[in-house]
């Protein structure tokens, strides 16, 4: 925690309420403001819509009772009473967001986590795990921590850090929690979706791993602004944060090609507030990639992706990450196959997207030192300008995406999937993705030798790309050949998923799950490899 910002949790929560309420009162009272009644009515409207679809449980009933009372009071409310109602609404949101957080349990959970994950790899049942803390840590062998680890440790001592990883799996936050522990960094605050609280295994950690609650079903703009304000104040209070700027897990398997800017802007807001308070506190954004040889919930992610993008007859099954047993199977699979997950730390950035040096000093694109505070100056003073600051945050998002692409670690499962998909694409010559996937679904064996030759070409391109700093290669892709990569890829893709993705039959390879093949090949999408056109439909508008 940085000097001069020893805010405790209660102070952070009350500061969030105070700022948010003040902002609402100011916006509502200016000329052309819509008035407090309209603000309250908007909340009531969005919350009523949400509650209509919500399960009939204790939480829903309590929210319903609260809204009924507000609705009853509103028509007769004096201006003072309206202000009180606004404060109640905001305080209720803040209480809900921070409700699970307890620093003591937090520290405990951080210690327990590595044993728990290692234990799972060795085959303990989750229920036994939560009771016992035995088991040597095998996790270290399967989680490789690479890149600018010292750089991250350095900036974490100089200021507040936002760690910004790629997002592929609900396992990400747990692995990052463990990586942070191994780097001997103080814990991270993390906004976890309510859905993560539904699986008993993850729920235990989510409740306690510094997670505050994010309810994605709440469409009330006031709720979303309150969330952002909470992240901002927590950063100002010196709490390191974990953001997944991609928003949700990558459904296609591709590395995120854009960052969502809402929460990301909290870093710049926190930095600006600190400057305006006369504090020299700094904020750093550290990109990070998590590269999995296999993805726990790949099957449900890709099916949901294909359903969203195409006019296909895909039906989304229940997300496998909601079942505890799935996590156990996955971790055991990783251990049994001796696979490695790469967590790679990128170079630290300032809130404007400039790289910083070991002393935390910002650098321009040519490595010249600059004072980032000056980006906020107008006529010599630090100012707030939402349009300007949104552009700075957009630039930060672009730099994150570039860093993710450079620091992504290519692994044999994706290399095999990419090369095989390219051979099939050329053979089948289908005009669009959905027909291609259906055509692969039919029985279309491919000579293994052809795939090995394609992997050889891919390896040459990947190695050249790595030399140019455009990607990282895992050990399984260095000093090797197509035959070896196909073997390793088949071991991974053949083992964990319910149906093997690809199978060897004599001298041929047969694809049994074209969707998953597509998912794993997408990790190498966008690098222009093998001269292949983009198969994965690009993300929607910014």
């Amino acid at each position, binding site marked *: 925690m940085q000097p001069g910002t020893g805010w405790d949790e209660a102070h952070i929560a009350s500061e969030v309420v105070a700022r948010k309420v003040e902002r609402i009162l100011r916006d509502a009272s200016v000329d052309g403001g819509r008035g407090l009644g309209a603000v309250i009515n908007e909340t009531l409207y969005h919350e009523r819509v949400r509650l209509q679809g919500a399960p009939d449980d204790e939480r829903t009933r309590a929210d319903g009772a609260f809204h009924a009372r507000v609705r009853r009071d509103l028509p007769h409310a004096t201006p003072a009473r309206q202000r009180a109602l606004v404060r109640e609404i905001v305080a209720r949101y803040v209480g809900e967001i921070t409700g699970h957080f307890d620093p003591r349990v937090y520290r405990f959970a951080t210690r327990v986590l590595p044993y728990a994950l290692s234990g799972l790899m060795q085959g303990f049942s989750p229920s036994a795990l939560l009771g016992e803390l035995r088991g040597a840590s095998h996790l270290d062998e399967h989680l490789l921590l690479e890149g600018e680890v010292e750089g991250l440790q350095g900036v974490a001592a100089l200021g507040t850090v936002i760690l910004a990883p790629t997002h592929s799996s609900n396992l990400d936050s747990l692995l990052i929690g463990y990586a942070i522990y191994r780097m001997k960094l103080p814990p991270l605050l993390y906004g976890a979706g309510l859905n993560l609280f539904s699986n008993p295994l993850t729920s235990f950690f989510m409740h306690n791993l510094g997670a505050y609650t994010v309810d994605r079903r709440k469409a009330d703009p006031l709720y979303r602004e309150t969330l952002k304000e909470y992240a901002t104040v927590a950063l100002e209070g010196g709490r390191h944060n974990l953001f997944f700027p991609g928003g949700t897990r990558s459904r296609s398997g591709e590395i995120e090609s854009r960052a969502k800017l809402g929460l990301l802007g909290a870093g710049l807001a926190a930095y600006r507030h600190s400057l305006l308070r006369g504090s020299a506190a700094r904020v750093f954004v550290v990109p990070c990639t998590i590269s999995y040889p296999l993805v726990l919930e790949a099957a449900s992610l890709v099916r949901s992706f294909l359903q969203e993008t195409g006019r296909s007859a895909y039906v989304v099954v229940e997300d496998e990450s909601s079942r505890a047993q799935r996590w156990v199977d996955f971790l055991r699979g990783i251990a049994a196959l001796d696979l490695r997950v790469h967590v790679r730390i990128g170079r630290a950035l300032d809130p*404007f997207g400039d790289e910083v040096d070991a002393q935390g000093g910002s650098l321009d*694109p*040519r490595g*010249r030192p*600059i004072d980032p505070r*000056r980006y906020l100056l*107008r006529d010599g003073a630090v100012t707030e*300008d939402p349009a*300007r600051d949104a552009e700075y945050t*957009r630039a930060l998002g672009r730099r994150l995406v570039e860093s993710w692409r450079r620091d992504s670690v290519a692994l044999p499962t994706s290399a095999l999937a990419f090369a095989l998909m390219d051979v099939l694409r050329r053979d089948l010559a289908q005009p669009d993705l959905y027909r291609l996937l259906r055509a692969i679904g039919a029985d279309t064996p491919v000579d293994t030798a052809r795939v090995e030759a394609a992997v050889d070409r891919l390896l040459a391109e990947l190695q050249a790309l790595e030399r140019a700093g455009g990607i990282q290669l895992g050990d399984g892709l260095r000093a090797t050949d197509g035959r070896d990569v196909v073997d390793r890829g088949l071991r991974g893709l053949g083992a964990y998923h319910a149906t093997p993705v690809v199978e060897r039959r004599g001298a041929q390879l047969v694809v049994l799950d074209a969707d998953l093949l597509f998912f794993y090949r997408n990790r190498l999408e966008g690098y222009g490899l093998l001269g292949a056109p983009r198969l994965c439909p690009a993300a929607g508008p910014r």
Partner: protein
Amino acid sequence: MIAVLGAGNWGTTLADLIASNGHAVRLWTRAPAQRDEVNARRTNEAAVPGLRIAEGVSATSDLGEAVRGAELVVMVIPSRGFREVSSALGEVLAPEQAVLHATKGLERESNARMSEVLLAETCARQIGVLSGPNLAAEIARRKPAGTVVASRFPHVIELARRALSCPRMMVFAGDDVLGVELAGALKNVVAIAAGAATEMDIGENAKALLVTRGLAEVTRLAVTMGANPLTLAGLAGIGDLMVTCASPRSRNHRVGAALARGERLPDILAGLGMVAEGVYAAVAARDLARAHRVEAPLLDGVYRVLYEGTGCEQALRELMTLPAGRDVARFQSAS
């Protein structure tokens, strides 16, 4: 205080316009003789013959002196020298300073846009582009005109308006920096085709056909690269194309006319004595169209006439015998 970097005909004209609006202007030029001429005699005969430069303009050859303390830096440097000047600018620029560039070209080899060069070489973030139908010679003679300033930063547009806007200059705003930059660079290729068509005397119908189809190709390419289609219908697109294609004064137009007379490119450029951005933009247009898999037969034809010895007559014949597809893309009404 406003800095104008580059004392060619457009840079000098802009400096004069800004100073006429009551602002102090520092005009940077590499050449000491030019600097002294501006300061001592209030003229820059080589660049803008006959112009009496407003008193508010003071010329300097020291980039740091020009830039330090300026709230807006206006870059008017040809694309070929843009990176070098940007790199030097990076040594003296502060993060809070806004940069507006008025260069209608793309960098050779990299095909980078000028705003991309600025982002790569300096700490500048608050960047904008100035473009439109602006023949410097007319503006220097105080004739009325309009221009467009595009930036993602409203503050940059505000600064540019404060500097440029007056009863003889309307400044329109936009946020499509990429679209304005591509329109400004690529329309020069179409202007070369228009110049050739004028010289070949193939008639006004054919000339309108060439220019319109050329704009359609530029639009297709720019939109594929992320531009707003309507930007190409604005001042930086159609507006600029109208002036470059209609006016025999335009450099690119003159290049086209000379090609149609059968002159060779090196001789044409030597005779011109100035930069014709379209000659380089033709290379960029061909590269970009290939990279983005966009069909652009007219832009490609200009390239072949410039660099592969294809005759204008033959290029025209090839264009006229291509299958004609849809005129414009299908429109989906909002209602």
